[in-house]
């Protein structure tokens, strides 16, 4: 390697490290201050804590109802994503395998619908679904996520199914398997990679979604982003507690990411490029 290329590599490394530092620094700042007393934060937010206190976390856990909102977030995300996978994989299979005019139009409508911003729907949406929401707001929210997520998930599955040879379906059909059995026993297991992509993309969206839950959910059914926002609004004067609340809000998804990092990256690159 020439010395010029070597220098280039060093500069790249240097720039990369500085940027990486800048990207994680805000989290670091929040974490450090969550361990400090209010007085120390006001004096110098950059300083390393002189006395470490876990009080902030105890307060934040309680006041933002952390476990309750974590449970709500998990229930809503897991159920919505599972149902989305269930419905959109079947829909995509039907659309990809039935070569008819109507399936082409349905697919076109699904793809076009992805351009509609939620904001263009939310007002009539809330007026129309108010009774449903007040009857069961978590159920309603999951139902809405299935509706809003169908287009992209179906689109992703559709692309994948088009690459599975139809001979496989025909073989199953000759063996006497019904359409449903053939799909769930043979086709669906073959789609594991795209299922992972669909799961991760939807899970990230639903886990972090704010506007729709804000319109739909009540105090008891708050998800993590909602309770974090409300908690921060109420206790932002108590800097330490507010910071602890933010740390708590960030931890679950970061752990999830570090465990499944490979799937995250490949999921997003497949989901985006399709």
């Amino acid at each position, binding site marked *: 390697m020439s010395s010029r290329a070597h220098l280039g590599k060093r500069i790249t490394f240097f720039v990369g490290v500085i940027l990486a530092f800048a990207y994680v620094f805000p989290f670091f700042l929040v974490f450090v201050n969550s361990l400090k007393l209010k007085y120390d934060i006001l004096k*110098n937010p950059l300083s390393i804590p002189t006395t470490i206190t876990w009080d902030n976390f105890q307060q934040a856990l309680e006041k933002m109802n952390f476990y309750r909102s974590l449970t709500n977030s998990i229930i809503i995300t897991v159920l919505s994503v599972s149902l989305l996978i269930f419905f959109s994989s079947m829909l995509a299979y039907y659309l990809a395998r039935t070569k008819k005019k109507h399936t082409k139009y349905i697919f076109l409508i699904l793809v076009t619908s992805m351009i*509609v911003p939620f904001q263009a729907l939310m007002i009539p949406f809330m007026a*129309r679904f108010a009774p449903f929401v007040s009857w069961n707001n978590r159920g309603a929210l999951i139902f809405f996520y299935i509706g809003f997520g169908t287009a992209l998930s179906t689109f992703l599955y559709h692309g994948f199914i088009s690459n599975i040879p139809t001979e496989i379906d025909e073989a199953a059909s000759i063996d006497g398997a019904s359409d449903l059995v053939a799909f769930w026993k043979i086709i669906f297991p073959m789609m594991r990679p795209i299922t992972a992509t669909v799961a991760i993309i939807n899970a990230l969206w639903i886990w*972090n979604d*704010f506007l729709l839950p804000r319109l739909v959910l009540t105090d008891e059914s708050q998800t993590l982003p909602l309770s974090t926002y409300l908690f921060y609004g109420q206790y932002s004067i108590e800097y330490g507690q507010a910071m602890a609340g933010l740390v708590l809000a960030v931890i679950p998804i970061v752990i999830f990411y570090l465990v499944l990092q490979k799937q995250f990256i490949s999921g997003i690159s497949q989901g985006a490029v399709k």
Partner: protein
Amino acid sequence: MMSKRTAKKFLQFSFLPLAIFTIVLIVPFVNGVYYTFTDWDGFEATKLVGFDNYVKSFQDPTFWATLRFTGLFVVVSMVAVNAVAFGLALIVTSKLRSRNILRTFFFVPNLIGGVVLGVIWQFIFNSALVSIANKYDWELFKESWLNDTNKAFWALIIVTVWQSSGYMMIVYITGLISIEQDVLEASQIDGASPVRTLLTIKIPLMAQAFTIALFLTLRGGFMAYDVNLALTGGGPFRETELISMHIFQDAFANGNFGTGQSKAVVMFIVVALAALFQVTISKRYEVQR
């Protein structure tokens, strides 16, 4: 016989998802467009009023201000996010041994919802930077950026870049590694400099990644709400309200369902046209392989 089986298949495989999709998306959409031509007050519509709601929306000076602010935000954030994201992608696809750990760091903000990111930066701009600036006499940050409309705009851009560049980086990485190795080797043998290779070979060959990333940032810019709410809350004096927040306020805070929904329809049309325009232009630069 055959048609019975296809009908059965339709019911089994696609009836429920299509029904849910129609109820959740199509019905409110059609309804919403219809309501804008009536005197709908959130509960009932008694008569048709033509274009009254649209006329009223465009007579509202704050709506024009929001449109201008949103347009500026979309353009600047598109440029900034994509420039940074492409740079990050170049760094993590270089031959550095630390590239994977760098990629992990760059991606982390993207995992976290805009609201949480917004309040983190609200703390940084309102408290952390102000206290440091006062200590070290650093004029630029002495007054919180969020109290000044122009600086608050740049604060929004900074947070948006921080949030989305990791995602777009992945899109660009996918584009960069899809370029065939032998093309790059050929250019190296021909003696092309790294910059030349980048400009004349890599970028044209991965133009599709630009189409996608530009589209996603365009759409994201128009739909931005969470960061806006948590970082500036639209302030000072509602001057940093992006269109999403403006519509939300108009309808749900002030109870103007008619104009709120008309503005939402305008937003939809603007997004659709802008996206169509951008994709058409970008597609022209894509090389057919």
